[in-house]
């Protein structure tokens, strides 16, 4: 097993592609995007399903090396800016170290 970081980002769906492009650009080995039903944060309740989809959130999960994680976190402004979004990081271990 190899130690890696697990980055978890909740962001509004219309910004999802911008975030995954950022991850790709910063050298993340991959990511997984999950749908979100609803969320609450500083900006109040965001319940998906409005006709324009602007209240939808997604969760983006990215497992990466410490180095890539540091680069991602350095883009704080880019990731969070004025947008509804949260970023959290935790430790994990992966089976195939060469891929992450």
């Amino acid at each position: 097993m190899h130690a890696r970081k697990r980055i978890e980002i909740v962001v509004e769906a219309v910004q999802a592609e911008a975030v995954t492009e950022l991850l790709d650009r910063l050298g993340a080995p991959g990511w997984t995007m999950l749908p979100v039903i609803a969320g609450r944060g500083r900006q109040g309740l965001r319940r998906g399903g409005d006709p324009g989809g602007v209240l939808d959130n997604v969760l983006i999960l990215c497992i990466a090396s410490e180095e890539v994680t540091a680069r991602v976190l350095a883009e704080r402004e880019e990731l969070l800016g004025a947008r509804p979004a949260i970023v959290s990081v935790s430790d994990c271990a992966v089976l195939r170290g060469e891929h992450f």
Partner: protein
Amino acid sequence: MTSLALLFPPPILFFALGFGAGALRSDLAVPDALAKALSLYLMVAIGLKGGAAVAMPGGAEGLVPALAAGVALSLLLPLPAFLLLRTMTRLDRETAAAVAGHYGSVSVVTFAAAVGALSARGVGYEPFMPAVLAAMETPAILTALLLARHGSAARAEAPRGGGAPRHLLHEVFLNGSVVVLLGSFAIGWIGGPAAKAQLSVFAEGLFPGALCLFLLEMGLVAVRQLRAAGRGLEPALIGFGLLMPLIGAACGLGGGWLAGLSPGGMALMAVLGASASYIAVPAAMRLALPRADAGIYVTLSVAVTFPFNVVVGIPLYLWVAGATG
């Protein structure tokens, strides 16, 4: 038809049903995918029907001035909206600009409900009006951006990688609603009467029922939105949401009159002027003006102006336009 049935046709009653169910916290729900499917269907059906009608001899007569009037309305209506918002309410410049953009643009379902009301009354209208609808969807976005420009470094905010300007132009010219409406319109036009006959059960037979179901969902969405973001709505904002459609309708009537439309066409132009976007513009504004408060514009558009237009506005605009059969 009884006058009760004329005043409250099924689509409006379904809206009321959804609104009432939501207000009383019923667990009634329309699956998300159904709502999106119905919205897509309504645009396809409106486009096909309009295109087929334009393919009839003389069907395109008067199209160009009507398009011009529509685009002008979409570009200009955000101006009075912005002015009103900045004087009547305490919205910041960016949010005010974003809201204003919604009121230049249009609502497909409000248009559909108005078309239904005209049919029920047996009043005709220019068949190319769906093309006008499509043309009015997005020009207002440009005005909204100009209005926001002098505010906080709005555009610098957009994620570098995402390429906001690129996305933005797509939203204006290649927005899904615009593409589907115009595309279906063109397909109906090319296909002509043969396509019309072949697709009539789909595009015409199903239409009233699909509209009812979608309005049921809109009623639920309106309440949900009022509940989630309602606290944030100062009374002045609600006032704006009720006043602005009247201004838009008046300008629409004027524009329709200048473009030489029939009473039915003028009524539809009034409806287009009065209605506010709840699909194309919100998505564009999230990308272009991320600092603007989405809760405000979604709520105003979906939960204040939409119900007002559907319940009070449409009968009023039809009556003023002399399109009551």
